[in-house]
């Protein structure tokens, strides 16, 4: 059983992580917009723009359409935001051990990741607008499409760690403590790179960004899922979008680039914590730049059937090849073959 002292600590750190997640999430959205703008030869909005937008949304009227199912319509954004924050509690941030790290692993995170998406689906269907319904259908299809490659990545990494004899291979703590690159041999590193590629493609789909933003598709569905949302509800969704950006980047960081400054350079404890946090933020921005900002300005939007074939055929195959390479990497030295 959990002691009361331990519980208080978890609650306290949960509050800190929540605030941190929201602030950093919005900040990430601002950076994303700024980077995209500069790539398009524009100045773009200031980095604090998401905060300004949030403030504006919070003072705006919250319109619920007449033919909407009001309780689902209003509940969806709250659950979406709450669940995306909960995921953050399972992820290592810098050198801080996740507050709920001991109570869940990567499989749980994978399940939790579907909740914000499901909330958007529920909210979309509850809006009673044809655009939102089409958006909701597309969101479901997209979700089914990217879950498969995502699962391959998670299983492959955990399997390789298990093959190397590491305890609890699915917990993020041990994944972060034993980077795949240091465990695997040359074949495994190639496999790991392929998995990183798959993960980089899953990220924009999870965040519904171009080229996988068919569910919102501004020019087709006028915002799709979110078309009827306004005011506080929309603010909640935009917050959860920010937090989700942080979550996805943090997952990529935890699996593929988990190193901390403090483990490389010897620093006094207080400084190390701050340095690690900043380093973590740097890694998150790097991941976001390559898998979100750059991709979303460099491509046209896919059609929904193209999204499915990209994930199931191309990325599925790449993921499977990565998995096979990792397996071969573990099996070959054991069989006495020297590479």
């Amino acid at each position, binding site marked *: 059983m959990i002691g009361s002292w331990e519980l208080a600590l978890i609650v306290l750190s949960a509050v800190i992580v929540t605030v941190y997640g929201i602030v950093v999430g919005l900040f990430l959205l601002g950076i994303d917009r700024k980077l995209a703008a500069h790539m398009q030869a524009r100045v773009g909005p200031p980095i604090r723009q998401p905060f300004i937008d949030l403030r504006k949304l919070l003072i705006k009227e919250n319109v619920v359409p007449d033919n909407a199912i009001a309780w689902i319509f209003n509940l969806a954004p709250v659950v979406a935001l709450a669940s995306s924050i909960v995921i953050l509690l399972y992820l290592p941030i810098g050198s801080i051990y996740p507050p709920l790290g001991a109570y869940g692993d990567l499989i749980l995170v994978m399940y939790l990741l579907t909740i914000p998406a499901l909330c958007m689906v529920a909210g979309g269907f509850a809006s009673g607008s044809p655009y939102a319904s089409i958006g909701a259908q597309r969101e479901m299809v997209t979700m089914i499409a990217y879950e498969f490659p995502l699962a391959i990545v998670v299983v492959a990494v955990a399997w390789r760690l298990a093959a190397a004899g590491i305890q609890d291979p699915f917990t993020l703590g041990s994944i972060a403590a034993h980077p795949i690159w240091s465990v695997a041999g040359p074949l495994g590193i190639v496999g790991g790179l392929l998995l990183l590629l798959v993960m980089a493609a899953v990220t924009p789909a999870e965040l519904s960004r*171009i080229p996988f933003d068919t569910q919102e598709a501004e020019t*087709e569905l006028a915002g799709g899922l979110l078309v009827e949302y306004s005011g506080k509800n929309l603010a909640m969704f935009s917050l959860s979008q920010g937090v989700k950006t942080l979550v996805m980047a943090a997952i990529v960081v935890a699996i593929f680039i988990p190193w901390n400054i403090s483990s490389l350079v010897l620093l006094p404890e207080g400084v190390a914590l701050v340095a690690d946090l900043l380093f973590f933020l740097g890694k998150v921005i790097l991941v976001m730049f390559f898998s979100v900002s750059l991709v979303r300005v460099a491509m046209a939007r896919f059609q929904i059937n193209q999204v499915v074939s990209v994930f*199931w055929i191309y990325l599925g195959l790449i993921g499977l090849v990565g998995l096979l390479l990792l397996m071969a990497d573990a099996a070959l030295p054991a069989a006495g073959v020297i590479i």
Partner: protein
Amino acid sequence: MSEGEGKKAPYTLPIGPTHPALKEPVMFTFQMEGETIKDVDFAPGQTHRGIEWMGMRRNPVQIVHLTDRICGICGVVHTLSFCLAVEQIAEIEVPERADYIRVIVHELERVQSHLLWAGVAAHELGFDSLLHLTWRVREQAMDVIENITGNRVNYGIVQVGGVRRDITPEQHPLIEECLTTYEGLLSSLLDLFLDDRSIHMRCRDRGILTYDDAVHLCTVGPTSRASGVNMDLRQDYPYAAYGDLDVRAILPDQYAGETRGDVYDRIVVRLLEVGQSCGIIRQCLSEMPAGEITAEPKIAKLLAVCKKAHGEAIGRVEAPRGECLHYVRMDGKESPTSWKVKASSYSNLMSWIPMLRGEQIADIPIIVASIDPCLSCTDRVAVIRGGRRNILTKEELHRLSVEATRRLQA
């Protein structure tokens, strides 16, 4: 998996009159099955502005500035085609130099219009970086136009009898520089649009308009040329200085070696036409004869000539979107008795239906944009009586037209 849809029941999807996919108002009603379009109907006429009514209460010199404002992009084609009609009626001989200046501005307009379209098309595909890129490079054409005419959009350079401003020798290097930029840019624009995998996936074999459909629906301009119809007013019925210039219709097989009549081919035709226009302007600049720029520099005298004119005529111009036509009838009064504008999009709108049928929701924006619709140019009639809109059938329209002709002849 090809559809990826659980729900298959047919439903209706309204798009319009205002929607992010549409840059101008038009009302689409789609009969959908999952993501696939089963049938489509559209209702234009949402932006009728009564321009012809205004024109019939003004003299030709004033109408010229009204025609400038029929379209927000084609600032010169409507004016030119109106002037061509009036000049035929009033038997005004346009000086050769004016014809060349008209062609130069006309082609600069085609350059900026096609670049604008390319940007819009990219935006419809969700490719905003290309939108920003093409619109950024388009600025140079706008700057040159502004320098020649005095305004970016409402040029006001064409007047009945000629043009209002000459192109001075100091302006030549400016235009040359712009042309060099575009000729250099063209290959990279072709690369960015046509070699891009994601654009290819979205545009190849989408929104196909067959050669037969293109001919039967009387489509014009790049829309018909992309389906392999070899027609271009500048080649078939040269006006202004085009008779002296060698203009050949651009067809998609010149680039890709085949004609499929899809959205991709329409991108090909428009981008190649940018290069062609640069060549035409270059030729005009070197061959432009010296001389007067207008048949009648005194506006008061011009008004008197127009007031005496009797007769009717049609002015035809190859606008960036296709053939644009103005019918004018003058009966010795200050203002024309009848003035009818047929914008190029009017002929192209019906091609939406065969293009859209069987495609997906995701294709709607790009297919709708692919004919470069200009609805404020097109919308001419809106019948509203007692607060209700009526749709006129073909028979009713025919009867009304016969009555109108009788009235005019009486």
